[in-house]
């Protein structure tokens, strides 16, 4: 069994943060964690190539890195592509996820990676990939590599993979058919009885969890701040030029309001199912409070109102999708030097 292994500059032995800008380096054979991985994979397993790249380089030039890695992996033609484990290293996790996804979809080669549940790479790639739950503690390297090796062997041999808890990978949020002995009503009552008696039971539907969001510090001088309006209530210009769907939207739009003091119903429409949109249709300021914000700007309460408002529809949308929309909007907010955002949500 031939393996290609991707590591960041730290685990690849180049060095710590000061080497995060290093570009892709190719090593023959196993490096660092790859040696133990080789042992766990069995006697016939060999890491034929190790790819090492600095975390900053990997994230800043992801397309370039992905293309270079795809070329190298294609040449080496391995039975399995391994990246990490990345623990809670965010840039490392993002790169490992992106590379695994590319190798899997472009070359059809089985892939395995590992990171902690809180790693931003886990959010992005848990649906597409098997990501072993590494936790945040790198001292658990040995246990994590063993799980990666076991799951990797199964994937390479195209054997059936068990449930997340059995194999130690992060829940992918996928539904899988399974034959069970008891019907739903019986299982439900069993669970309820267990709950009432304080006995352990396992729910078949886990609630979504949200990692805490750090609170950004307060705006110091509002009279100099650039403020942007964003809504998830689906307000779009007449004709919905970006074709933002009224349910499970995959896109967002940025709409110019420079020089406008008021939003007029004739020029807008609402792409959002579920709530009665007639009031907003009559006067869009009821959702995107442009008139009041323009006054604040004129009175000097705020420095400047950003010349565009952003809009999408927040209805019935998978989290993986809304997280991407949020991330894309946040990138624009950052890029355009916005100091504060008012988000109106229906």
């Amino acid at each position: 069994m031939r393996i290609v292994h991707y590591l960041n500059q730290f685990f690849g032995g180049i060095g710590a943060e000061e080497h995060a800008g290093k570009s892709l380096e190719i090593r023959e054979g196993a490096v660092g964690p790859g040696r133990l991985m080789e042992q766990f994979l069995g006697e016939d397993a060999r890491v034929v190539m190790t790819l090492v790249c600095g975390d900053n380089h990997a994230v800043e030039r992801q397309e370039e890195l992905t293309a270079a890695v795809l070329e190298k992996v294609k040449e080496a033609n391995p039975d399995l592509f391994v990246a990490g484990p990345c623990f809670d290293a965010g840039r490392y996790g993002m790169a490992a996820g992106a590379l695994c996804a590319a190798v899997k979809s472009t070359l059809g080669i089985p892939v395995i990676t590992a990171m902690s549940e809180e790693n931003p790479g886990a959010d992005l790639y848990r649906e597409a990939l098997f990501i072993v739950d590494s936790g945040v503690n790198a001292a658990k390297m040995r246990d994590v590599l063993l799980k990666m090796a076991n799951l990797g062997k199964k994937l390479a041999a195209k054997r059936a993979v068990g449930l997340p808890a059995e194999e130690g990978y992060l829940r992918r949020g996928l539904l899988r058919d399974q034959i069970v002995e008891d019907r739903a009503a019986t299982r439900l009552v069993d669970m309820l009885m267990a709950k009432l008696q304080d006995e352990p039971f396992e729910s078949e539907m886990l609630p979504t969890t949200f990692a805490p969001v750090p609170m950004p510090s307060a705006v110091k001088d509002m009279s100099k701040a650039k403020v942007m309006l964003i809504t998830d209530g689906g307000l779009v210009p007449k004709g919905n030029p970006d074709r933002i769907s009224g349910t499970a939207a995959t896109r967002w739009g940025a709409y110019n309001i420079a020089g406008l003091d008021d939003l007029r119903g004739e020029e807008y429409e609402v792409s959002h199912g579920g709530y009665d949109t007639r009031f907003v249709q009559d006067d869009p300021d009821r959702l995107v409070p442009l008139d009041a914000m323009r006054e604040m700007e004129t009175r000097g309460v705020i420095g400047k109102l950003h010349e565009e408002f952003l809009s999408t529809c927040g209805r019935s949308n998978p989290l993986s999708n809304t997280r991407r929309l949020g991330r894309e909007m946040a990138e624009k907010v950052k890029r355009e030097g916005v100091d504060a955002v008012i988000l109106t949500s229906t």
Partner: protein
Amino acid sequence: MVQITSALPIAKMVGSNRVVLGNGIVHVTGDAKLPPEDEKKLRRELVQRALDALQSNEK
């Protein structure tokens, strides 16, 4: 960021840090029942509350 919303449980669930309670799902920053001038006054107040929240470090 500050969020103006009438769906407070959702804002709490997702961990929104600065929340101002809006004036209803169907018109977060308005009120169709009020005469236009009063409605605008309400909107000014809501926006001012949002700006105040942005300048505070309290949740």
